């Protein structure tokens, strides 16, 4: 079987409770269809997301990780959590390469409660992108090991 045939990317989405999770809800209520590859983990604030969570997700077999929070600068329910998330993800991206993970596998997006369309579009786009990248290199390593 060729490399990407039948490859179903697994994506973990860390969504903040107030904006992005609500955006995903709106995608649902509006019946906006997107590929079924994402598994959403709800956290109260994108500022809660530890880069270690993202690395763990890759270790556990994720092919991509989405971090979504409230729009900058001031939509954050906790005032500045989104800024914290943006700094942490930026730092993580630098480290990812060392782990052999393409930085494009991690996406940081701002999704508001009224952007159901946008949420779906992000998932669609991300699935497409990761399909192109192929399975996470960590996964292959484990399989080989």
């Amino acid at each position: 079987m060729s490399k990407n045939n039948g490859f179903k990317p697994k994506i973990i989405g860390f969504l903040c409770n107030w904006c992005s999770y609500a955006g995903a809800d709106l995608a649902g209520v509006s019946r906006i269809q997107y590929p079924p590859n994402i598994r959403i983990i709800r956290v109260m604030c994108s500022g809660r997301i530890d880069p270690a969570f993202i690395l763990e997700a890759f270790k556990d077999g994720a092919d991509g990780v989405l971090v979504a929070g409230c729009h900058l600068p001031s939509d954050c329910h906790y005032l500045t959590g989104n800024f914290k998330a943006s700094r942490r993800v930026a730092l993580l991206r630098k480290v990812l390469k060392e782990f052999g993970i393409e930085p494009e596998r991690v996406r940081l997006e701002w999704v508001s409660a009224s952007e159901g369309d946008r949420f779906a579009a992000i998932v669609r786009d991300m699935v497409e992108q990761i399909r192109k990248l192929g399975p996470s290199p960590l996964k292959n390593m484990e399989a080989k090991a």
Partner: protein
Amino acid sequence: MMFKPKIIGFVCNWSQPTTLNSAGTGRIWGYPRIRFVRVMCIGRIDPVAVLETFAKGADGVLLIGCHPPDCHYVEGNLQTEYTVEILKKLIPLAGLEPERVKLLWYSPSEKQSFGQHVKDFYEQVKNFGPSPLRNEQPQSKLMLNILATKNVASDFRLRVLLGREKELTEGVNVYGEHIPKEELDATFDDIIREEFVRHMFYLLTKTKPFSVKELAETVGMKPAAVLRQIVNMRRRNMIILDHVEGTTPFYKALEVK
């Protein structure tokens, strides 16, 4: 060469005119080009099936059922009258004469006149000439039209109402009010018009992304009206924005995977 119309007749299992052969799938004598398809009750005939028949190139469609009081399924056949009415609204949208579809009641006591009705229908269809859909390419405008009407007929909006039209016109609605036939008719006309346009856009944008202006030109509508329908189609997840070129958004059908 003389034109010999191809006519399909849907006939109720219980009302088979004795003019049909015993298999019930044969032909009425003298009209070899009428092919019959047996159904359990003409009341169950789906407008989609009739439109599909036209799409396949039939020149006329005949529906034959038991005379209203004789229906084996009590009142099943009465529904057919409403179905035919809707069909007569849908067929012209596909560029066909509404008279190409006809409903006939059969009862053994009216054998003679029945034969005459069949004959008249045959002649009428013959006069219309061959269906313009006969040798059409699948992507042609006319084919898209008939496909769109088919989609309209299978759309929930029409089906929901069609299923209740009899109840609503003959009795009262859920509020105990009587709705005049004309009012209901107007509602049907509106829905059919709107849905036809939407399904047309859907079929068109399935082939390639279209802009509002292009759609307007293709179907001869005002761009503002096209945009309003696109808004509705977005709400119903029939269409999405594909891309923007300069200042022009292009839309494509949201295909069900």
